[in-house]
């Protein structure tokens, strides 16, 4: 019965069949099931021990506040009514105990699934890329989506088996803890969507890491990534993701995720849609966020697979990612439904961090290397003027052209959205007008700085040395650290030194100077002018290098 099913599955998705043949073998499945059973047994044992040591926590009678940590508290749910006496099991509210089991499993299952699954996917794709077998799959007429689904479902299959074996206990715990069907539907849907998203990210990393490692001749780099990325995602991103949901989708279900607590966090809103009023609104927005992230990750994944020598994202994709990413983010801090002071500050900080984070990611993913630039120069040189598309169009949208103009355009998009957002806030929050000018200037300085780093990185990526990627990373890091370091040294002797202020203004933390009331406007203007001049100089240098390369082709 299984053979015809596998045969039909293999016809639809040969990659999945190949992975299952390789992994879904007796010993592996039994090991996964045994490990899962041991984990469940350990969990129940620990939970039981926990109850025996603090029975009052599970007692059907709640501890009055004035009896907390008194003998009366320890006497609760004991057969003889004495503190630390034998437990009276009839008085135990088992739903509380099951709630603890459920809460632990709610957190542990996604962390285990994400960590192990990502590790397997990154390792598998790295191995395929390094061995060269992936090239054969690339040459096949199967659509990339077909291959990805095969990998997604097949490579971590033993983790799925292990987690699947935990589901009966999870469901039983949920029923016993009186968790609603709504929570379970929400939890499972987001569990699956999160896993898909992280696994797509793992595949992107698995495809890109060997390329970066090869470019730098560092195989250790790929090995480090295989361990570091799943660890970071499982240990930091998943818990952060789950914690942040207390303000959104799980606002109404907080006891099932965060334990019994009287504290109820304030719910967020997105462009005026209140998350605490209707659960489906929060879920809709959450799915929208995950859907948009998944859409772009999938596009990046497809590109990494189909075009192993191209930049990780195209110029067109970069504009889409920046616009959709910032619209989603700013929606959470939009002033539609009233924005309090604290949320506005969090929003501005998050926005600034996103500009930095987004800018640096764009530098790493949008700038082509020397070979691609030479190909571009070569192709343009070979084309008749009538065939050639306009230079502006090429620089903004072209596949192989330098990425710096596209980076600048993205920064303009970020800046545009940021300035519109910032101008909305002061009308609603009193007392913020003065600081807003400082924030807007800081944003302008930051955008110029990122453009400068991008131009520097693009110039380094055009170097002849094979270690050009290392040069690009090193020079950007130096450009970030050096003004900061020099500024700090100069300010030791004289904290109000003009030179120190100027150095801080062209460092990643211009706020250090902008926040001071004594800062002269000409100093800020000078810093903006200086950054523009440096940017212009770097662009001129890049343009000369490209022209020289063209001349050498004759």
């Amino acid at each position: 019965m299984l053979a015809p099913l596998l045969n039909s599955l293999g016809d639809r998705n040969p990659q999945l069949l190949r992975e299952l043949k390789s992994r879904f073998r007796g010993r592996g499945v039994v090991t996964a099931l045994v490990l899962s059973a041991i984990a469940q047994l350990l969990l129940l044992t620990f939970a039981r021990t926990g109850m025996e040591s603090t029975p009052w926590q599970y007692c059907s009678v709640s501890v009055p506040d004035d009896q907390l940590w008194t003998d009366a508290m320890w006497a609760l749910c004991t057969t003889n009514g004495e503190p630390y006496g034998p437990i009276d099991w009839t008085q135990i509210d088992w739903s509380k105990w099951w709630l603890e089991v459920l809460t632990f499993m709610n957190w542990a299952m996604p962390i285990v699934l994400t960590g192990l699954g990502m590790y397997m996917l990154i390792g598998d794709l790295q191995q395929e890329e390094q061995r060269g077998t992936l090239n054969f799959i690339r040459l096949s007429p199967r659509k990339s989506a077909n291959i990805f689904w095969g990998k997604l479902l097949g490579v971590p299959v033993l983790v799925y088996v292990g987690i699947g074996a935990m589901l009966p206990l999870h469901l039983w715990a949920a029923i016993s803890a009186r968790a609603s069907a709504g929570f379970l539907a929400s939890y499972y849907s987001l569990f699956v969507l999160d896993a898909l998203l992280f696994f797509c990210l793992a595949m992107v990393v698995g495809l890109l890491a060997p390329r970066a490692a090869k470019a730098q001749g560092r195989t250790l780099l790929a090995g480090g990534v295989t361990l570091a990325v799943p660890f970071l995602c499982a240990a930091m991103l998943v818990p952060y993701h789950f914690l942040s949901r207390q303000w959104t989708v799980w606002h109404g279900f907080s006891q099932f995720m965060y334990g019994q607590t009287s504290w109820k966090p304030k719910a967020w809103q997105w462009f005026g849609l209140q998350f605490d009023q209707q659960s489906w609104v929060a879920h809709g927005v959450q799915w929208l966020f995950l859907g948009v992230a998944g859409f772009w990750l999938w596009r990046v994944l497809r590109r990494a697979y189909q075009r192993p020598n191209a930049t990780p994202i195209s110029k067109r994709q970069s504009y889409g990612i920046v616009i959709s990413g910032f619209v989603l983010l700013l929606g959470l801090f939009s002033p539609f439904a009233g924005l309090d002071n604290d949320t506005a500050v969090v929003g501005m900080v998050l926005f600034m961090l996103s500009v930095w984070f987004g800018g640096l990611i764009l530098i790493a993913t949008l700038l082509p290397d020397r070979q691609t630039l030479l190909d571009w120069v070569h192709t343009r040189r070979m084309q008749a003027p009538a065939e050639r598309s306009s230079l502006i169009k090429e620089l903004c949208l072209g596949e192989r052209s330098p990425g710096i103009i596209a980076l600048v355009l993205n920064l303009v998009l970020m800046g545009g959205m940021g300035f519109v957002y910032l101008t909305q806030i002061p009308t609603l929050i009193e007392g913020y007008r003065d600081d807003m000018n400082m924030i807007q200037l800081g944003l302008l300085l930051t955008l110029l700085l990122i453009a400068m780093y991008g131009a520097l990185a693009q110039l380094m990526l055009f170097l002849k040395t094979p270690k050009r990627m290392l040069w690009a990373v090193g020079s950007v890091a130096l450009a970030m650290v050096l003004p900061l370091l020099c500024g700090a040294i100069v300010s030791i002797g004289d904290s109000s030194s003009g030179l120190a202020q100027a150095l801080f203004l062209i460092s990643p933390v211009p706020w250090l100077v902008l926040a001071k009331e004594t800062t002269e406007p000409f100093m800020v203007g000078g810093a903006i002018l200086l950054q523009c001049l440096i940017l212009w100089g770097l662009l001129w240098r890049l343009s000369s290098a490209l022209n020289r390369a063209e001349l050498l082709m004759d």
Partner: protein
Amino acid sequence: MDTLAIQTENLIKQFDSHTAVNQVNLTVAPGEVYGLIGPNGAGKTTLLRMLSTAEEPTAGEIAIYGETLRRDSDNPQAKRRIGFLPDDFPLYNDLSVWDYLDYFARLYFLTEPKRTQRLNAVLELVQLTDKRNATISTLSRGMQQRLGLARTVVYEPSLLLLDEPVSGLDPIARIQFRDAIRALQAQGMTVVISSHILSDLDELCTSIGIMQQGQLVESSRLEDLYERLSSQQILIHALEGVEALKAELDVAPHVGEVELLPGQEQVRVKFAGSQEDAARLLQSLVYAGLSVTQFQPTQDDLESIFLKLDYRQTS
């Protein structure tokens, strides 16, 4: 006229300042076995990788059976027509021979019952039928290379691109591989094969292309190449000695340069006539009273022609 199996137009591939393939205009007709020769680094592998869609050209166009390859597309139709066996042939060592071929057959949309038929046919073609259940890691290099060929042809591509397919194989494995290619040629498959073993190409190919410094400096049918560039030589020995022999040869028709082979009582004669003319030359020598003990006509083979052309520069 049939659509060409391969047509490239000003194909260029640049690696940094190094031009690996330079303005190549290659045409291969359907059913041909096209041999690609040239020194190491001449651009053969890069050209084959571009034809197989494994590498993007810097500039230029490639059409496979009339379909121009597009840079922004998966080119699924063209990919179904192409079978590519690179010089390194990574395999999945954990799979059995059958499962490996089955996986690739499925990747190329082969369904039952045809899939099983094809798998049996290709295993027979590459003489690995008795190894169908063996794990790939247990196969010898020659067997793995033949398995690579089986994988390449299992979905019946119309165009087969083979990059150094017999390098590192022992003579018997080479013969087996050659037999397999001959069988594929008989089935009407177009084959482009790059190899340094020119005697193999001599036997297999209908056309030859020579690459030097990334350029296709010669591309013609094998018979035309022989006609243009191969010269006939005759080794002659007579008991009367080389001087007497030389005197007769100097006046004989179709005889070119006469070379005395040092240390031997033998001459090597460049001969421009046909087989009948060679027979008449032998007759005239015997009539002249010479006791001819050796009369051995030979012709330049592909290797001699290649060396004569002196295309030895890499790109």
